[in-house]
């Protein structure tokens, strides 16, 4: 479970995140929806302790990020916005590297890696160097290395960015599977249909603030719009930066 309370973060005079609070529960997919530049990535970066918030608190499975950042990172699987791979290493070696950094024993490492390779359908690329990988192959590898330590909580920053239809479909199925395994899945997106189709709960962020936090149905009800797209536009106040 990921709990976020009243997060603030400013870069110079720009208030990127201005009082964000929400909770992402286990066994649920929580979507962080907002136009580009709304503060989604900055919020997520504070969750996985890459940045320290100016104010506010982050707790993962009850562990306070300010007190024990390593403990928080150990409980998280993260696919950041930046998902660069080491191009002179094979996909498998990329996964192993992160597994060892998580302190996985060698025997467990091999079985975890093989399970993920199967689940993500990566058998044909596991022994290839990642240089020249397609966007889809790159994302698969990045997800595998993020989840190799079997984390209870999974954070995915715009995971479908740049993927084609088939790869997006496969990724959505994989996320549903993570949810079915009882994990807490938090992902950000600026694509409404994706959020609507997958999420148990939607947190809408605009201008660094949470403007809505509810189930898709509740959002529709609250705005009085049958169409979710119209509901979002109404909540955010404009359709700038959103994609259908």
């Amino acid at each position, binding site marked *: 479970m990921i709990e976020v309370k009243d997060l603030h973060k400013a870069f110079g005079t720009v208030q990127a995140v201005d009082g964000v609070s929400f909770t992402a529960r286990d066994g649920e997919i929580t979507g962080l929806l907002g136009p580009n530049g709304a503060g989604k990535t900055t919020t997520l970066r504070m969750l996985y302790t*890459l940045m320290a918030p100016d104010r506010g608190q982050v707790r993962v499975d009850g562990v306070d990020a300010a007190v024990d950042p390593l403990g928080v990172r150990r409980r998280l699987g*993260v696919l950041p916005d930046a998902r*660069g791979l080491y191009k002179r290493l094979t996909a498998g070696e990329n996964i192993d590297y992160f597994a060892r950094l998580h302190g996985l*024993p060698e025997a467990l490492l091999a079985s975890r890696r093989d399970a993920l390779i199967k689940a993500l359908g990566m058998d044909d690329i596991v022994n290839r160097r990642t240089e020249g990988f397609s966007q889809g192959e790159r994302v698969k590898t990045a997800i595998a290395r993020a989840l190799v330590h079997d984390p209870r909580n999974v954070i995915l920053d715009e995971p479908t960015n740049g993927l084609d239809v088939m790869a997006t479909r496969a990724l959505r199925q994989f996320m549903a599977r993570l949810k079915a395994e009882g994990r807490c899945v938090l992902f950000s997106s600026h694509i409404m249909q994706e959020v609507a189709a997958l999420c148990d709960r939607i947190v809408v962020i605009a201008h660094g603030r949470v403007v809505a936090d509810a189930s898709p149905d509740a959002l529709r009800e609250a705005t009085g719009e049958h169409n979710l797209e119209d509901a979002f536009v109404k909540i955010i106040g404009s359709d700038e930066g959103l994609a259908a």
Partner: protein
Amino acid sequence: MSAASGKARRSAFLTVFLKEVKENLRDRRTLTSAFLTGPLLGPILLVLLLNVTLNRELDKAEKPLPVPVIGAQYAPNLLAALKAGGVVPGAPVADPERAVRKQDADVVLRIAADYGKAWRKGEPVQIELIYDSSQRDANTAVERVSQLIEAYARQQGAMRLVARGLSPDTAWPLHVARRDQATPQSRAVLMFAMLPYFFVITIFMGGMYLAIDLTAGERERQSLEPLFANPVPRWKILAGKLAAISTFSTASLLITLLAFAVVGRFIPAEKIGMELDLGLHFGSCVLLLMLPLVLLLGALQSMVAAFAKSYREAQTYLSLLMLVPIIPSLVLAILPIKAQAWMYAVPLLGQNLGIMQLLRGDGVSGQQIGLCLAGSLAAALLAVLATIRLYRSERLAISA
């Protein structure tokens, strides 16, 4: 996370180190720079340079020296003496000043028409040597001709004194006896003043691409952020990377020392009375003196590269940083400083002095080695701490 639990697991430090080594061993550019161009450039350059210089010096000293002579017919005896000294008198040139400036001749000899008359009267006569001292090439030739003439003059003077029943010593109340204390090794030092810089450059090139990769490279290919999302303190990641940089630069240094040892055998140093020992003892002493520099340069390179936004920018910064270590070598080459004890504690300068002393064949004392290691190690630790601080900053991880 400490290595708990009985099952085999690799420490974060070792994981980072091994991954960096493996990844960079697969990179042709890094390999070329660390194991080929970096370490071999110095030895090859040195051999070429030395051979050219040595051969030229040797040529000048032994070769017949053509000298255009104006008015050769007035002084046949003088010319005979010059010929005996290896000078080949040539046809007179119309404009000797121009010929010298245009480097058609190194030196031109002009004998006045009244030479014979004055000589017979026992009056002093003037011989003109026309040359251009800014043409360094010509200096050996000028020196040779003028020495031959002076020797001839002295000999003739002595004969005149004897003919008048005087001892030649009357005319030369003082004798200068030169006792040159230069040993064959110390003469070599003059030519090898740049050797310490070659070693520094080698260390530099050996670790350069890894150092760039450490921050600018990881950031440019967007892998630093996922790396930092792992439950490993950043200083441990940095330590692993610094270890990888140091391993590569030490390997470069070893290769270059080996190359110098091999090349040292082919340098015809003894031909000009020099002695050169670039063998095992020299190599191990240099390695010892240089080890703290390996860490210092690695940390400095990482630090400088961390300020760059891209790989290319980091490369530019580092090539500027590469010029810094040349300063002590240049200063020592231009200003003949007498080494004080404290100078050994100054990083780069200490290594420079130590290596020069080794080349002279004087050896380095334990105290000097101690000072050199302590000073450079302290500087290296400071650089590492500063880099760790920099590595901790929030901005570092975020890609452009």
